[in-house]
């Protein structure tokens, strides 16, 4: 009798990875759902104006060159999920200089902020920012201590290089009761355990 031992498959085979590449295996259920969507043909064409889709329900794999036979399909198309994004990145900004800052003074026409260089680190800086550079919808964030991001660099938009300076205030949801309770629990725990002389 051959003894068999059970073994755990290597974790690599077992874990859904959190990387950018899409999982190539779609359930046929999902494919059926997608196949019944009525979608605008133009939204899913690639730059060669050819249309991609599933070859058939069983084959949900793509590569960039794959082209479907659409003669049997009605006039609707499917979102494209490919191993590598064949969607060209048209707008990008790289190699910018970035800071995170907080407002230390509110003056008549400008605010002053303390800035941390998050590109290179090192020493802090102080700078002045005019109110009219702040987007209308960000104005409510103009308070002492408000956190914002500032970056300076070149963007590429559809091939056009543009010098840009971007100021964006940080947005996070307001505190909930849970947040307060968590903090107060910590405070109570510290109060019980710290020894004060």
């Amino acid at each position: 009798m051959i003894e068999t031992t059970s073994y755990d498959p290597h974790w690599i085979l077992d874990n859904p990875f959190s990387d950018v590449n899409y999982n190539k295996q779609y359930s046929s259920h999902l494919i059926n759902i997608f196949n019944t969507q009525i979608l605008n043909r133009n939204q899913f064409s690639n730059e060669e104006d050819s249309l991609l889709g599933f070859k058939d329900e069983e084959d949900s794999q793509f590569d960039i060159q794959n082209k479907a036979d659409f003669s049997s399909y009605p006039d609707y198309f499917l979102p494209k999920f490919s191993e590598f994004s064949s969607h060209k990145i048209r707008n990008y900004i790289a190699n910018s200089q970035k800071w995170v800052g907080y407002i230390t003074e509110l003056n008549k026409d400008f605010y002053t902020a303390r800035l941390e260089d998050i590109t290179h680190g090192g020493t802090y800086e102080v700078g002045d920012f005019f109110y009219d550079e702040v987007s209308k919808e960000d104005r409510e964030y103009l308070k002492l201590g408000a956190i914002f991001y500032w970056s300076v660099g070149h963007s590429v938009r559809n091939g056009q290089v543009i010098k840009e300076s971007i100021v964006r205030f940080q947005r996070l949801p307001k505190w909930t009761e849970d947040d307060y309770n968590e903090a107060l629990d910590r405070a109570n725990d510290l109060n019980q355990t710290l020894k004060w002389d």
Partner: protein
Amino acid sequence: MLFKESLQIKTMSIVLIGDFNPVIIQPFWLASRKLIREQEAQNAHVEIIHNELVKFELDWVSIEITKSRFEAKSSQEPYFEPMRDLCIGIYELLRETPIKSLGINHLLYYAIADEKQFYEFGNRLTPLNNWDEYLTSPKVSQLEIIEEKRRDGQNGAYRVRIQPSDQPLSTPYGILININDHFAVDKGESGRNREMISILKGAWTESVKRANEIPEKIYNKIFPQ
């Protein structure tokens, strides 16, 4: 020359694996919670809103959500931290969402100057003369190196994948270094304790630092100055 001088495009993506309800997350929901500007919601390009799949783009970030996976992606460096804040904000509001793993992904696109250096890059990473006998004019197509036990002690892994660029760059010799900084809950954990969102907050700075350093250091190792 510093390798980073060849860097042309940087993309970051935050991927969450868990149990999601895609239809909740739509541009107007985000604006109503003040996670994005109203104007941004109005200008959003929505590809699909469906129980199983939601996919839309703002000026600076694209979002795709299925029942098991959430992804936010941006190629605009000034918006990487706002993108992180957006993900944190969404799942602070939807705090009951079970999230079992997190990927902070860095895609770095380098335009290599010439064919010789392009070939040498792969050749020095994995010596191709080992293959000469068996393959005609072998080239590196994709290389993946993995750290199975994270050096910070967190559950997860760290993967570096090197492949030719899938984006057109200023030279035809583009390289993509795709780094997956992967975190996961302990086996058996439900992911309901918001561990992954805490890690997203705490690990971000180090993740960015490490992803910026590794390509530079590897390049300097294989092309010593």
